């Protein structure tokens, strides 16, 4: 097979090429997940990747780990069950923006509140791509979608602030362009004992891009390159952050983890 070692080791290559559109950022982000797992040298049999429904949720189907493709928005509920049943497993959840913050919004905040040891990675492409380009909770104000022909009048969620406010103990954001940073954040997210939330800004050249005249995939990548700035730089000079999208590690504050707290109760009765 004419592909890299990581691809042949961690992908179900007989399922490739994947169904994502040409230039879709999800392929790049999936690769960052794979590279992070490879870097941490995790045992493939101890990794579970769970997803819901949507473009992003196709990812586990192409990955050669224990994978579970669940119902819309419920990936975190299934993941909670997996983690409670076998706490040794590294549970990684891949969700989309609609999947995590609209249909599965409640699951997200409560999983974060419990601080259960799950790494949640959101591929945020600002649109419902699979169903034809309807606006999602992260579509920017004023942008066009098939269900917002005159501009979206809803304000978008800041997913990282939402997760942090709900109680996630590790929060970060990177993009498909900033693939190296994305990989580092995922590595730290997996290592964090608690609920980790990593938002990956993706690109959707087919629906979001075409509708909003954002240009081709390369131009959309260039937009991410030019309009994102690392939080560390903004902390030093707040002026630099004006009208920019913040990326980097936002929050890292380990707290008592849910499974461990639960085990303390079990031990209390087992002596």
């Amino acid at each position, binding site marked *: 097979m004419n*592909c890299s070692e990581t691809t042949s080791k961690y992908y179900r290559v007989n399922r490739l090429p994947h169904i994502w559109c040409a230039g879709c950022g999800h392929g790049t982000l999936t690769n960052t997940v794979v590279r992070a797992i490879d870097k941490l040298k995790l045992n493939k049999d101890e990794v579970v990747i769970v997803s819901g429904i949507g473009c992003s949720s196709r990812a586990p189907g192409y990955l050669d780990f224990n994978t579970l493709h669940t119902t819309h928005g419920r990936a975190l509920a299934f993941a909670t069950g997996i983690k409670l049943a076998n706490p040794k497993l590294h549970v990684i959840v891949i969700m989309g923006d609609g999947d995590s913050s609209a249909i599965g919004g409640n699951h997200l905040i409560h999983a974060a509140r419990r601080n259960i040891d799950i790494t949640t990675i959101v591929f945020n492409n600002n649109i419902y791509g699979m169903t034809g380009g309807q606006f999602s909770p992260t579509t920017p104000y004023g942008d066009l979608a098939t269900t917002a022909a005159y501009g979206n009048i809803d304000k978008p969620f800041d997913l990282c602030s939402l997760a942090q406010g709900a109680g996630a103990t590790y929060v970060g954001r990177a993009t498909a362009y900033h693939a190296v940073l994305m990989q580092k954040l995922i590595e730290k997210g997996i290592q964090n004992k608690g609920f980790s939330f990593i938002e990956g800004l993706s690109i959707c050249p087919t629906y979001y891009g075409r509708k909003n005249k954002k240009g*081709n995939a390369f131009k959309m990548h*260039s937009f991410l390159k030019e309009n994102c700035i690392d939080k560390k730089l903004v902390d030093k000079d707040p002026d630099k952050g004006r009208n920019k999208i913040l990326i980097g590690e936002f929050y890292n504050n380990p707290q008592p983890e849910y499974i461990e707290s639960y085990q303390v109760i079990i031990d209390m009765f087992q002596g």
Partner: protein
Amino acid sequence: MTKENQAIMGEDMDDEKVLLLNVPWCKGCGICVGFCPTRVLKLKEGKCVIANREKCIFCGQCELRCPDNAICIGGKK
């Protein structure tokens, strides 16, 4: 590696580093072409082609961002 793949690459695997292209997986999005700093890659008939192999500096920008795992740096490690 099959002879067919070798023909696609136009290169043998004896080199220390080699740019590999898996044409059937390429969807011709042009991300690798755009980010290649030495203009090794081109789009031809909706697919990526290695137009100037000798200019490749193996920076890995194409492999890093290719959404389709269609291009990578291989060879002897």
